[in-house]
């Protein structure tokens, strides 16, 4: 079955507004820096970044659906492909690849070879437990929750910790059936 959704976000990426990459990178860096100063605990910073990402994600999905013209995905596999090829390209300017599917088709990995958030960054000894890009996992989780998929998103590999790529594991917990807040006969 040939999916009707766009297989790449290049066309959309060419049309959306963009900011200078360094401005973006350094702004994000400043946010993380400030969180580290305010919250002191690295664990707390991870949580906060995830929460911020979630809040972004639940709004961003609307923008994504409005601009990308994707239609409803038939299964989770297609969803993952769309996130990796269209979503990441549209908002981050890079594409991810999807691999490591489990047999049930509910768990996969998004692999980012290139990540504009981490230019210049090097983790000092004092923040070894930090997931610097934790905001991304939050964004994916939040966005998927808005299209009725409960997911768990965790980092498996992180270049800042010496790995060779960024690997984000997305695990589908359950599909929430759509609920209408109103009754038909009222």
């Amino acid at each position, binding site marked *: 079955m040939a999916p009707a959704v766009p297989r790449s976000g290049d066309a959309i990426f060419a049309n959306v507004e963009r900011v200078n990459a360094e401005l973006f990178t350094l702004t994000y860096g400043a946010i993380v820096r400030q969180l580290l100063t305010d919250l002191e605990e690295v664990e707390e910073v991870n949580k906060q970044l995830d929460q911020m990402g979630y809040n972004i994600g639940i709004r961003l999905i609307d923008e994504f659906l409005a601009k990308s013209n994707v239609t409803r995905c038939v299964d989770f596999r297609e969803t993952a492909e769309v996130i990796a090829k269209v979503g990441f390209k549209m908002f981050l300017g890079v594409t991810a690849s999807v691999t490591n599917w489990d047999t049930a088709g509910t768990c996969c990995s998004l692999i980012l070879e290139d990540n504009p958030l981490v230019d210049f*960054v090097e*983790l000092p000894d004092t923040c070894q437990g930090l997931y610097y890009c934790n905001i991304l996992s939050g964004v994916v989780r939040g966005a998927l929750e808005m299209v009725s998929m409960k997911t768990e998103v965790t980092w498996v590999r992180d270049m800042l910790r010496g790995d060779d790529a960024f690997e984000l594991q997305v695990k589908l917990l359950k599909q929430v059936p759509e609920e209408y807040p109103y009754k038909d006969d009222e």
Partner: protein
Amino acid sequence: MTSTACFMIVSRNDIPIYEAEVGTAPKKEEAAHQHQFILHAALDVVQDLAWTTSAMFLKSVDRFNDLVVSVYVTAVSHTRLMLLHDSRNDDGIKSFFQEVHELYIKILLNPLYLPGSRVTSSHFDTKVRGLARRYL
């Protein structure tokens, strides 16, 4: 022939934030202290000289026996890259400073690095030592 070279980055508050012995001469404990001492003594001269010229590279600002102090003053943050050396290779030293300056800018751009704190990055250390082998 063995050469002596001691490289140090001094922050605007006169605190050393990075130091490395990059010469080929065998390391001696008291020599390292002596090098620190000579570079420290040269700071005053550098301060006076830095305002008299617009050049960032100040060559041979001070000397101690056969050891010469060359300094590169960065424009904005007034960080000083100081090199104590006994060779006379001005061009090499200038290139060395320029490349280290670029590395230092990368360090400054790291959002997790506090300006004025110690440079602990091992990547930076390896790069500086590599540059020293190439240019000095």
